[in-house]
């Protein structure tokens, strides 16, 4: 069991003294990303409050009087304490969150959980495979990789969405694509004939993506079924299992491993994850009983 927890450093409530106590943040901007997805940009009400996080960590976002939800941080770690959270409108809390306006206050607890192995990938190729809204938790890793570009070999982003209209951060992707030191491939599941890019599931891009399997770290985030098939393709290509990381999602509540809502086999996603090395969850990944 000990090996289960070795791969990632667990970082708990950072600079927040009581991890169960929300800190007031004021909304700076609400940005509609797609039909059902939006990004909140927030700053701490008390400007003396610092905040640091590692790419891949999440916060608990509290809409007062409605409830709290776990959302991955999707901003640049170097921009903290300005934080961005991208989420899809799926339930009561996110519906209420979407109605919040600039200037309104919300509560934040965090950052919680493990992070992407950005430092560990130094000197290697990095391949990032994102599906749908799974690009949001990976964006801070991309910022960090690009901020320290010289430390890594090839950086490849493979991104799959349902349609071209569902693509997140389109403007940023176009900018990044213009760089000569970053490979970005986008694919959609279906498209009108006017779409000039790839069509097909994101896993089909892995066999021909430009990275050296024996020297690659892979970071994956997306729907669980997409992650399972992505892992299979990466293993088939020759990427070592222990260098494949993925972000699991479960029903996080307390964020610190007390309540057990996010139990995933022998782990708690909020505390031991959400970023796991593949071997540590391989036995339970895709098991319908878990």
């Amino acid at each position, binding site marked *: 069991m000990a090996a289960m927890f070795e791969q990632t450093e667990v970082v708990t409530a950072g600079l927040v003294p009581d991890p169960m106590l929300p800190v007031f943040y004021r909304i700076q901007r609400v940005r509609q990303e797609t039909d*059902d997805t939006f990004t909140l940009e927030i700053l701490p009400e008390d400007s003396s409050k610092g905040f640091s996080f590692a790419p891949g960590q999440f916060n608990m976002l509290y809409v007062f009087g409605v409830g709290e939800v776990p959302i991955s941080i999707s901003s640049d770690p170097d921009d903290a304490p300005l934080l961005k959270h991208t989420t*899809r409108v*799926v339930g009561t809390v996110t519906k209420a969150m979407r109605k919040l306006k600039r200037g309104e206050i919300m509560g934040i607890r965090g950052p919680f959980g493990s992070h992407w192995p950005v430092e560990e990938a130094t000197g290697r190729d990095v391949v990032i495979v994102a*599906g*749908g*809204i799974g690009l949001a938790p990976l964006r801070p890793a991309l910022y960090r990789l690009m901020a320290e570009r010289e430390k890594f070999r090839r950086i490849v982003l493979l991104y*799959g*969405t*349902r349609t071209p209209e*569902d693509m997140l951060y389109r403007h940023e992707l176009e900018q990044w694509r213009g760089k000569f030191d970053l490979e970005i491939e986008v*694919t959609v*599941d*279906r*498209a*009108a*004939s006017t*779409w*000039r*890019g*790839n*069509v*097909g*599931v994101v*896993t*089909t891009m892995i066999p*021909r993506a430009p990275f050296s399997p024996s020297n690659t770290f892979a970071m994956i985030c*997306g*729907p669980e*079924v*997409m992650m399972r*098939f992505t892992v299979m393709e990466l293993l088939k290509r020759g990427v070592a299992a222990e260098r494949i990381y993925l972000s699991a999602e479960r029903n996080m509540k307390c964020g610190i491993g007390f309540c057990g809502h996010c139990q995933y086999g022998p782990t708690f996603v909020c505390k031991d994850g959400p970023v796991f090395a593949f071997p540590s969850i391989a036995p339970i990944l895709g098991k319908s009983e878990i």
Partner: protein
Amino acid sequence: MIQTLEPILREHPFFQGMEDQHIRLIAGCSKNVRFGEGQVIFREGDPADHFYLIREGLVSVQFVIPNDGLTTILTAGSGEVLGWSWLFPPYRWRFDARTQEPTHALAFDGKCLRAKCDEDHDLGYEIYKRFMQVVTERLEATRLQLLDMYGSHV
């Protein structure tokens, strides 16, 4: 001096590991082709006389969905295979294929290859084995597409 396509075929991942005698037979049914941007390579219902290995470029596989118009269901790019309708009766294309950008490919004459496969079953086995791999991968990808896995319900 006429150069054969054997060296190119030998290096292509699709023919990896194939014996020289089979490569020679296949090269006899192949030719280099180039398509301009937006060019139709084949249309649904037309005789499926060829298949293609794309060397460079991008091809959309499309069909018309009533009310939605022409819809792309798949793209095939560099190193990928386009078309397997030439392998099975009634040898008719099931979809349209149109280039998204100038495309350079190897085209294989289906009738020629089928005849050679009938004569040499070892060659036939090698060809069918490779196409089964492609068909299996496409089937798996199609199943994932059908799941609509990026929808909020998955």
